[in-house]
């Protein structure tokens, strides 16, 4: 039996990160969810939690085995339904995809564990939506087709709409309406951008688009650039760059803690898409359309960092402060990508992994701290002291120091790599100034918040360490923080991996060979865009079936 299953398993591995959460979510739906406190501690809730946690742990194992496979440099191409590219949809697992998958599922495990501490019983179908979110995010990371990327964006967005209002309340619904409307407008722009890309190149397969864009004449290239700019707006809205970040602080601050922590990965989906479209398809070697966004991306990223940290300084609550730090961290990552060199890309990937873990941990920490401050919650005002000042204080210190980039924490390493990689580029003075000043201001903002939270306390007894701080919640947060600290220890292998990932992304020929086959590469003639001339329709070159 296992002889039969093992090849089947390895053959279909690229699609499993999408199918696993899908089937888990469907089973959870069938199991039903009455919700509310009535089901709290009931056998059904226990079964749901067990199934949900088992699935995320399985997914984490699966994604790490994909990393192990991708680390050798193979491009694992999976044509869905056996249809050859560019006519069918392909999934591609390269180093970048595998890294993003592993990051997603590694964050998901502690976050879901945290959510089983009580949040999942404060509404219905939390686990179902959590798995649909994971399905959308995983799908967006593995797909090799731009329209399929749109579909997975919609899957993750629909799940995120429901998760955002999980727990309900007026504030969440207000933020929810804004978030949904903004993202629906962005979806419309996404479709417009895709339609232009299709109209110009006649294909939506990422690898094929990358080949065709190099063959475009100057007039068509400028139309393609317009489409790419529309896509930058869409991805920029997801990633929260200037001037499209204004929705993020209110939305993330309104969401419940585990949801906000999981949303930390969603800004990275936007960043990932910018890498795929604007840094790879429109990278060097894209002919007339090459580096179309070079003039925009770096300045926008630096302004995003600056405004993000100013927002963090002005924040009146801890959750808003962390939300603004999310904005600043996205700016830092995009600054690395905006330099358009493999070294800077590698540094940006390293920093992205670190910032996702730290931001997710900080969002969980916000709720731990707030739950011990009574009525004051996470507002930055003096209140009665927290019940566990040493534990929470240490965790805040570690998270804050890493977010600000103090040595020897991974945030420092990430920022150092970005600074180092910018040294030989013309923009290095700007990058150095902004990154260093922003790091300093982040430190000030977090130090101010920390001193108000832990030192500037009102006389009186500390709040009782109630149900808000069960050991499970603390352990889940600690494990996320520990994972981010592990990045400092494992910096060398991770940096080697991201170096290789950045080098792999620049290798267009390898992708063409892997996806389109030896005769479908750069030299192949194309019938696209389809003009309908008689006798022009040719069948695609046959490609080995999986």
């Amino acid at each position, binding site marked *: 039996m296992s002889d039969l299953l093992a090849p089947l398993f390895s053959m279909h591995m690229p699609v499993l990160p999408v199918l696993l959460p899908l089937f888990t979510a469907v089973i959870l739906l069938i199991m039903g969810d009455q919700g509310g406190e009535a089901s709290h501690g009931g056998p059904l809730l226990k079964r749901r939690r067990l199934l949900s946690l088992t699935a995320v742990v399985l997914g984490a194992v699966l994604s790490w085995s994909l990393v192990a496979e991708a680390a050798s440099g193979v491009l694992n191409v999976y044509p869905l339904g056996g249809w050859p590219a560019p006519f069918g949809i392909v999934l591609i697992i390269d180093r970048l995809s595998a890294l993003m998958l592993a990051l997603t599922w590694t964050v998901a495990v502690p976050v879901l564990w945290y959510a089983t501490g009580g949040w999942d019983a404060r509404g219905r179908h939390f686990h179902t939506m959590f798995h649909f979110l994971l399905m959308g995010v995983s799908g967006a990371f593995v797909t090799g087709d731009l329209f399929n990327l749109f*579909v997975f964006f919609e899957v993750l967005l629909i799940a995120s709409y429901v998760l955002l209002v999980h727990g*309900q309340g007026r504030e969440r619904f207000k933020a929810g*309406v804004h978030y949904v*409307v903004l993202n629906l407008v962005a979806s419309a722009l996404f*479709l417009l951008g895709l*339609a232009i890309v*299709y109209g110009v190149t006649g294909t939506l397969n990422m690898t094929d688009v990358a080949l065709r864009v190099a063959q475009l004449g100057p007039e068509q290239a400028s139309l393609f650039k317009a489409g790419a700019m529309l896509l930058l707006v869409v991805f920029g809205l997801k990633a929260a760059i200037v001037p499209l970040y204004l929705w993020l602080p209110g939305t993330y601050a309104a969401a419940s803690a585990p949801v906000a922590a999981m949303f930390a990965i969603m800004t990275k989906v936007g960043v990932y898409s910018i890498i795929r479209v604007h840094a790879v398809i429109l990278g060097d070697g894209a002919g007339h359309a090459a580096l179309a966004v070079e003039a925009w991306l770096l300045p926008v990223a630096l302004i995003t960092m600056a405004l993000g940290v100013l927002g963090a300084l002005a924040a009146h609550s801890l959750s808003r402060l962390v939300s603004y730090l999310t904005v600043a961290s996205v700016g830092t990552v995009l600054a690395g990508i905006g330099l358009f060199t493999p070294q800077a890309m590698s540094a940006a990937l390293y920093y992205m992994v670190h910032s996702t873990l730290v931001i997710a941990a900080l969002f969980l920490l916000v709720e731990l701290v707030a739950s011990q401050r009574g009525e004051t919650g996470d507002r930055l005002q003096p209140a009665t002291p927290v019940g566990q000042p040493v534990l929470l204080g240490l965790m805040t210190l570690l998270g804050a120091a890493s977010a600000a980039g103090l040595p020897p924490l991974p945030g420092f390493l990430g920022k150092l790599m970005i600074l180092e990689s910018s040294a030989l580029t013309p923009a290095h003075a700007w990058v150095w100034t902004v990154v260093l000043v922003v790091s300093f201001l982040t430190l000030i903002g977090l130090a101010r918040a920390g001193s108000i939270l832990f030192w500037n306390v009102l006389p009186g007894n500390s709040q009782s360490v109630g149900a808000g701080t069960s050991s499970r919640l603390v352990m889940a947060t600690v494990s996320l923080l520990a994972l981010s600290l592990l990045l400092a220890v494992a910096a060398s292998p991770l940096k080697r991996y991201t170096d290789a990932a950045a080098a792999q992304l620049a290798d267009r020929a390898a992708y063409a060979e892997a996806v389109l086959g030896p005769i479908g590469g750069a030299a192949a003639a194309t019938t696209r865009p*389809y003009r*309908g001339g008689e006798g022009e329709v040719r069948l695609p070159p046959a490609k080995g079936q999986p």
Partner: protein
Amino acid sequence: MSLEFLVASGIGVVAAAGIYLILRGRTWPVVLGLCLLGYAVNVFIFAMGRLWQDAAPILLATGRVADPLPQALVLTAIVIGFATTGFVIEMALRSRHESGSDHVDGHEPGHGPGHPGDKP
């Protein structure tokens, strides 16, 4: 007047009306605006397969056929658009129920948090 001009200006007018409605302050016009924008986008995708006259919609043994791919894309976009429109209507109704106002900010202008006439 060419067919291209007619289609392009039609998309433009519908999209402009949609954007105007999205910028309104109440949730219902916003939902209508999203629908209109969705229609404009769907026709735009369709037009990106080029405008065809006297061509078969699906592949026959002989003769010209229209580009089938945008038709498949637009079907997907319509289905997703339908689902999200249903969701945003439900969201708007719940927000109206929770806050007592159908304004997108969750409170009537001049009655918001921080205003003298604040009524929670």
